[in-house]
């Protein structure tokens, strides 16, 4: 506990009833907001900051980077040029930086450009931390200073930094005599900007990025250290005007054995897990090398791996390993292709069974619609969806031949002619489909196709309805037509059809259907609509 703590605690106990005194330290701390102090600029109030070896050991395969960082940061009170830490996501940039500061126990101001999503928020959060200001109900969640422009920010920042450094010098002088281990912090203060790559998207005017990168030269304060943490390498930060390049430190992705150490590190049964890793790590390593992705994938596989085991404390021998492997074997390949889908698949058992059912049903392509299309749509919406699908798949030139009133078999031969004639054109068309994806179409075309297929389908529907039951009152195509625009809008809302930007009154909007083919087929099947007959096969 820092020496600044103790007087506060006295103060609090005097303020509050004796109950708070009897209440243990952690309790009070977790419940009641302390008035922010200089200590909030340090990592935490631990009595003993962790040693460098702890840091190194807690991050396998990062020794070099840690040493490098330590060197750049240097001993107490020595100024540094801006530092640029970069590397792929989940390579431990942020964690290691913070841990190092915890070890060095120096004051710093951390601000992630992800959380601070705009210049103003970033500025204000930095200033709040420097001015020891915490938003709360008391100050109605306002920040210490309102500041939107870089120019104001620089002025405020100067004042704040000066005050804080003097403050630090003061108490480091005071405490240097008393607690050397605690207050070896020196009078430098470090500004850490995390997720710097987000800044590039902030303003197209591209003032923000050069400003941040030149901040050191603008401030001209040697007792300030700037640290930028970014997912992307410095060469991706090209801006119209250059900047003094900060000195880089690179965090490469983890190698295979590093990953192994990381995964084994926080497992209770290390032997078992390592035997598990022997099986899974290598294949997955060929796909991705990110810790977070791998860990999500492994956590589920490991469950499967442990299923046959009675107690997880067991130390696996060879043949047990073999058995476990043999029963894990079938799961690996699918989960390798599933791994990414799993992330959005239900983890609850109902869901799993549901999925299974769907797969089976789609395999046997049963006729019951409820399994096919687990989504309720009105008939006209379905027709509309299908016609949109057709409109965006078929070339517009073929509509005439496809959707004449007969609609049926003769349209096939008519549409085969051109496709046979020009194969290279076909190639081009295929390429074009590959490139452009589903094409766009105007509203009129959609309506026309809709008319055609409904008129055809209505006929068939009519007679089969007559066959089954005379229940239907007249549902002519006009009654299907009636609120087709409403249907269209709701389809657009559901992202089945996306709409290009244009004035709706003009009616010149172009639409595009985004649904995949099997979805369309499902819908068609639910209507007993011969989609494949109308689909132009290239």
């Amino acid at each position: 506990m820092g020496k600044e703590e103790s007087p506060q605690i006295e103060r609090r106990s005097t303020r509050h009833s004796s109950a708070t005194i009897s209440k243990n330290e952690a309790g009070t701390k977790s419940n009641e907001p302390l008035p922010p102090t200089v200590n909030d600029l340090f990592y935490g109030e631990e009595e003993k900051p962790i040693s460098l070896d702890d840091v190194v050991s807690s991050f396998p395969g990062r020794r070099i980077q840690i040493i490098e960082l330590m060197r750049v940061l240097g001993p107490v009170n020595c100024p540094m040029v801006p530092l640029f830490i970069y590397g792929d996501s989940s390579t431990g940039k942020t964690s290691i930086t913070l841990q190092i500061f915890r070890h060095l126990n120096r004051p710093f101001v951390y601000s992630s450009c992800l959380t601070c999503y705009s210049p103003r928020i970033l500025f204000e959060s930095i200033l709040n931390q420097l001015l020891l200001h915490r938003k709360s109900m008391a100050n109605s969640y306002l920040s210490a200073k309102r500041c939107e422009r870089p120019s104001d920010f620089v002025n405020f920042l100067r004042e704040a930094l000066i005050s804080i450094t003097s403050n630090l010098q003061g108490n480091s002088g005071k405490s240097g005599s008393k607690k050397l281990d605690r207050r070896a912090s020196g009078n430098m203060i470090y500004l850490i900007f995390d997720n710097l790559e987000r800044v590039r998207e902030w303003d197209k005017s591209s003032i923000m990025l050069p400003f941040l990168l030149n901040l050191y030269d603008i401030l001209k304060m040697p007792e300030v250290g700037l640290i930028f943490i970014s997912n992307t390498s410095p060469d991706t930060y090209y801006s119209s005007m250059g900047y003094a390049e900060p000195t880089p430190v690179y965090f490469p992705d983890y190698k295979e054995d590093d990953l192994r150490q990381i995964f084994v590190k926080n497992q209770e049964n290390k032997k078992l897990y390592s035997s598990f890793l022997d099986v899974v790590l290598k294949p997955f390593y060929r796909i991705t090398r990110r810790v977070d992705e791998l860990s999500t994938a492994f956590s589920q596989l490991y469950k499967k791996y442990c299923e046959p085991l009675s107690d997880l404390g067991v130390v696996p021998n060879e043949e047990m390993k073999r058995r476990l492997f043999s029963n894990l074997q079938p799961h690996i390949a699918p989960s390798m292709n599933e791994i990414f889908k799993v992330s959005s698949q239900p983890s609850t058992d109902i869901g799993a069974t549901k999925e299974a059912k769907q797969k089976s049903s789609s395999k046997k392509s049963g006729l019951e619609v409820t399994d096919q299309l687990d989504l309720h749509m009105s008939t006209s919406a379905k027709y509309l969806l299908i016609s949109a699908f057709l409109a965006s798949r078929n070339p517009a030139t073929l509509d005439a031949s496809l959707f004449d009133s007969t609609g049926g078999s003769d349209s096939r031969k008519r549409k085969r002619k051109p496709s046979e004639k020009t194969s290279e054109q076909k190639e081009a068309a295929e390429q074009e489909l590959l490139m452009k994806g589903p094409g766009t179409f105007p509203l009129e075309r959609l309506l026309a196709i809709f008319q055609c297929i409904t008129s055809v389908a209505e006929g068939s529907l009519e007679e089969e309805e007559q066959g089954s039951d005379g229940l239907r009152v007249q549902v002519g195509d006009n009654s299907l037509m009636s609120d087709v625009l409403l249907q269209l809008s709701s389809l657009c809302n559901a992202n089945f059809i996306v709409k290009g930007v244009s004035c709706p009154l003009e009616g010149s909007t172009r639409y595009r259907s985004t649904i995949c083919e099997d979805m369309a087929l499902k819908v068609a099947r639910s209507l007993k609509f011969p989609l494949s007959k109308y689909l132009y096969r290239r």
Partner: protein
Amino acid sequence: MTATKACDSASTAPESSANDNIQPFYLLHKASTPRNSGRKSAAARTIDLSPSKPSSSTTTTNPQFDPHKAFQSVWSRIDSAIKDVLRDVNTNVFNEIHSWVRQSFLAVTSSGVPTFAEATKSFPILNHATSKQLFTGLVLIKNMEFVDDLLTFEELGLFLKSHACHVANLSSLDLSTKNGVGGCLRSLLRQFLTVTLDAVDISILASWYREYGNPNSPVIIIVEDMERCSRSVLSDFILMLSEWVVKIPMILIMGVTTLDAPKTVLPSHVLQQLCPSKFTLGSPAERMDAVVEAALVRWCSGFSIGHKVAVFLRNYFLNHDGTLASFIRALKIACAQHFSIEPLSSVLGLLAEEDSEDERVLALSSGMAAQIDSNLASCLTELKRSQKCWGIVVMCLYKAGKYSKVQLLDLLCEALDPDIYKSIASDTRTRSGKGFEISSSSNHSMAQQYLRKDGPISQAIEKVRDLPASPLSQLLKSWENLTVDILEINVKVKELQPMIKLEEGKSLKQDFTDLAKRHTSRTAANIKESKTINEKAATLLANLVRDFMRPIECIPFHEIACFKDVEKLQSALTGDPRRRIQVDLLEFHEFLRCKCCSRSCNIPLQSMPDTSIMYTLAQEHGDLINLHDWFQSFKTIVMNPSSKCRRKGKQSSFPKKRKETNEHENKSESSLQARLCRAVTELQITGLIRMPSKRRPDFVQRVAFGL
């Protein structure tokens, strides 16, 4: 029937009062179909007419007989019933969600609650890589339309609130590109700590949660319609949440229509942060069944609908928009129209209020001794009783049909079909010489031959015929519960029970023996009696159908309770405004009854309103109209002075025409052009034509063709 004739004059006033409260749906219909001249002019004068005609003709002042009140009471009953039912549909899903929320909250907080200082610091708490994962509930909406589920998510929010969670509902409006991440954070804070700030970040939420939030209750964020959100904003938002999830135990709930929606909407590194689990809301079909049961089948309020109407509603639901909301709306319109049309329907108001028989009789006899001969009362009791039976039978059928996925709506349509019943009834009458109990097989065939093959009813009966024992016994139990208050059915059901018991016993015994043997034994030994049981059950069902399922339209005086006018309902629902507009433009004289241009509608006359002249002229052109030609033809029509129609024009009620006739002499080119422009603009506003494009400035394009 006499009653209708009697109160024919009174029918307008209640109508006016009735369609005050269903203005939007009812309007088009009112404007279109001509009833009497006074309303006609009203319709033509303005677009948003509210026919507040002074109800001079209303004779009765008895509050019970005010159809408006009657409608109110009846509809309120139906409405409340529907609401309860819908709530019940969701409850178990909600419970599921809540338990999941609980356990995921434990999972989040398992790594230890950060102290206040830690939680409010700007830098993240260092943990394992997976600790940034955000527990996400994907709530599957089984409907393309989102309307029905807005309410659902509200209720979900309330439900979770009531279970001590901090809940905020976000919609796609909050997560739009326009107001960005700041926007949704702002609305979050507005909902949580009821302040509106201009500069918001999530740290505020953290400090709030630590200061004022309940430490052992999660913060739940419901994104109602995930597909509609803008991708970038949503992904940024999720990333931000996942940075803070250690400090604030946040749990995300997102409504999606399809399961792979997240994959399409979100990039991979965002998906990585989610740890999803799936919940499924009740599909519209089953909700619909529940609603139908509540509103129509069990005779909760006197109101019921005729066969054709039912069919229409079903088709409307299936074909047009599958939203429950629209179905309920349609029901409401039907109800309102019924009360507006049917004078005696106001009795239902009473019928709805009183429950027990005798009181009702008293009330009726006392209340309407004035107008109605008292046998109506008995008829009503009869009506009500048979309706009860009918409902019960339908429910039985439904319970049976559930095993073969029969929708109650279809069942209802068939059950309401009068002529089926008539045929069956006549048939039974012919062979009524034989006693009530006819040998099952013949009976079955007899009952079946009138029912439609693969119609829902016969499906249900067939299903009963080959149902394994245990579900069969459950089915019978459910029947018994259904039929408690109709004795003669109940006894029949009870007869079947003991056999089932015995059957059960057998099957239980066989359970102890191993599977294969069980099969053989079942097939061998007791296939027979099980068959007989099923036969009996099926027969019973068939008999019930034959004897008790009297569609309401086969009962005298059903007009009081039953609404049958399909055309009205249809025209009220599928208003088809574009078509309507065109029709009205062509047949305007339907509204303004001016003599001048009544006789001929398709050849344009000078006295016609400009817009309709223009539109009639436009009919002759193709999809592109040359403005100049158009203007010329318009001019020729308007200019040529036909004295007759000018004289007519004087007393015609159309203001513009009067003006025109007054200064007919100095009618200048410019004024003509002005009128043309005005007409064209009106046509454009009504969406019939499109303004000239850049390329062809002198052409307008027709948007709507045909009727």
